[in-house]
């Protein structure tokens, strides 16, 4: 058998474009390492140790600029810098213990210094505490103290919002401060016994009967907790997936938040809410980088929670991506049968 001519595809150095041999570790012409990571913008395998592409110059997204997490069981989260901020000051934590799923999302307060450190400290402290069985209120307090310790003075006080969700069995326990939110995304048929109008008017502005507060009033907080007032509940959709806001923002009518974790706030207390959805669905925990774009939005109805979270991120970016975006979805019941 004669030799077969193997067509040689010409390989060129991504930086200086000199021809290089397959298998070489360095370009002989310019010394550029040939096994370098690939640039997210121009695709050249030319990202240097400082994180810059040696062909197009782009500083590569760092771990926090865009991150995705997925747990066994489908719980998934994405966090992204968005299009208008220089860094991502949101932080998220997703943990699965034996029986619980723990999610914490915090959004660094833009006007505070080192807000990215505040949100990172809060999610780390709170998620670890919740995973070892600490109560929702206590975990919130620990996170608040961790953020408070980052301050060197009242004028140098990193700050962040907070929302935590612990899901065990069919029960959801939420705690929050600031304007990060939780939504219930109902994917299943509504039982007619609790919502007679469900079949004909799935999008009405009626108070939602799809969720049921449980023992929320048992909280000893001095701050308002419990049932979200009907006026605050806005079903965001009309498709197969119906979204209902579960949290109530600590925010002035002008949008500024009125509660946060940080040394310049003092003794912040969380809102707490417990509920047991009766239909299958997904718990959405998110920062304002997503919910500011939810008016009139049709939630995705297919794909894994990670696929859906990515689709929601794309929607936020397509809508302007003004702020950092964090989206966590926890499937409950038979959400993905």
């Amino acid at each position, binding site marked *: 058998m004669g030799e077969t001519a193997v067509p040689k595809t010409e390989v060129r150095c991504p930086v200086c474009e000199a021809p290089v041999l397959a298998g070489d570790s360095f370009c002989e012409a310019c010394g550029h390492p040939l096994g370098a990571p690939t640039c997210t913008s121009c695709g050249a395998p030319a990202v240097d140790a400082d994180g810059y592409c040696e062909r*197009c*110059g782009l*500083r590569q997204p760092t771990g926090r600029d865009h991150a995705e997490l997925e747990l066994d069981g489908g719980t998934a989260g994405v966090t992204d810098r968005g299009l208008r901020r220089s860094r991502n000051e949101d932080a998220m934590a997703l943990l699965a213990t034996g029986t619980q799923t723990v999610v914490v999302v915090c959004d660094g307060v833009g006007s505070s210094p080192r807000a990215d450190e505040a949100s990172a400290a809060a999610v780390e402290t709170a998620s670890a505490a919740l995973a070892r069985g600490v109560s929702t209120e206590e975990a919130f307090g620990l996170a608040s103290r961790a953020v408070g310790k980052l301050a060197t003075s009242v004028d140098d006080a990193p700050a962040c919002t907070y929302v935590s969700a612990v899901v065990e069995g069919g029960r959801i326990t939420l705690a929050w401060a600031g304007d990060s939110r939780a939504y219930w995304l109902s994917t299943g048929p509504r039982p007619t016994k609790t919502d007679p109008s469900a079949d004909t008017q799935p999008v009405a502005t009626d108070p939602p009967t799809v969720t049921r507060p449980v023992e929320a009033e048992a909280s000893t907080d001095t701050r308002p907790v419990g049932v979200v007032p009907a006026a605050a509940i806005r079903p965001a959709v009309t498709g197969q997936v119906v979204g209902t806001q579960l949290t109530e923002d600590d925010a002035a009518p002008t949008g500024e938040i009125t509660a946060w974790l940080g040394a310049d706030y003092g003794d912040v207390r969380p809102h707490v809410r417990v509920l047991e959805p009766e239909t299958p669905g997904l718990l959405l925990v998110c920062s304002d980088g997503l919910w500011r774009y939810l008016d009139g939005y049709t939630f995705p109805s297919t794909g894994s929670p990670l696929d859906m979270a990515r689709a929601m991120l794309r929607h936020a970016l397509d809508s302007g991506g003004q702020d950092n975006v964090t989206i966590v979805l926890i499937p409950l019941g038979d959400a993905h049968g």
Partner: protein
Amino acid sequence: MGDQPTFTLHIDQNKYLPIDGREVHAILTINSTGTVTTESATPAEAAEVIIIDTSGSMSGGKIREARAAAATAVQTLRDGVHVAVIAGTDRARVVYPNGPQLVRASAATRAEAQRAIGKLSAGGGTSIGQWLQLAAQMLSAHPNAIRHAILMTDGQNNERADVFAAALARCEGAFVCDSLGVGDDWVPAELRKVAEALLGTFDFVRNQGDLADFFRNLTQTSMSKTVAELVMRVWVPQTATLKWVKQVSPTLLDLTGKRTDVNPLTGDYPTGSWGAEDREYHLCVEVPPGQIGSEIRAGWVKLLRPDTQEVFASGNVLAQWTDDLAQSTRINGKVAHYTGQAELHELIQDGLSARAAGDVDTATARLAKAKQLAVDSGREDTARLLDKVVEVDPASGTARLRKNVDKADAIELDTGSVRTSKLRKNGEGS
């Protein structure tokens, strides 16, 4: 490398660009300590050629001052420095030593050189290109030394412009040359060409009695250099264009045309030899449109030795797009200052050219504007010289060219316009 000076490179810029922003400006400040840090280390070898104009116009008092100045320069050389002296007319002649090789300075050779200099007499024409080419040829025997020449002339170059330009091109990179013009019959534009081609300075010796001091200072500065030849290596992204690289302090020197390509994205720009000193450079990079929030390295600058590829200092010029006008419209003080200094230089050069060509309107407008800029940026000496050329009525602001301008004032203004002021801490020129 214990005998190498320490370099630091600092970059001043506003990295934020508006959405449609394409031009990135940065001022690079390079500081060299020039200190020798180990006792055993000796300074780099040095080679010095002294070029004296001995054309006919030098006869009389001028040749006496020139002889004294050249003797002072020789006296200033430290032991071991390679030296030669060239006398220039319409041809170039080695007056010391007796042959085409440089000799090491010592008490004996310094005395011999001074005796040879003492015999110099004036007569003949002026061919500066030939003088420089002889210097380049002699210095080529010392490729690793800090190679330097001092050129002194009092008259106009007799060479054709293209001959002179070709001679300068052959000398580029062979040595650094500082020039001195004496009297009021020389042409600043010619010595400016020497300075630009050979990375040196040029200066006006208004009072010929000061010539020896000028020679001593230039020789001392040259002796203080400890690193022979460094280049500034600049990378820009594939889709970007490096619009210019200019030295802006202590003098303006455009390096853009002196690029040597390293690869399609990278080029080397010569900076000459270094002692203990500060220099500043202005870079302008045109970048492709970017996305809000994304950051790029728009320039990657390294100061390095081309023979060993050793990097002495490096830094990044960045660009980040933002829709926050407060960020993108913030003006970097240093960029603004040196942009102003370059504009002042151009106004003076344009104004003087227009004045020489008889275009009174253009000359008046440019020089009056230059005067205001000189005052605003703390260039008192320049403002004082401009005041001798153009008169501005403080009340009405009306400007007119002065008559009977001292030729030496015009030459001093012309020569000095490449010097820049530094930016004071409070943001004003000094």
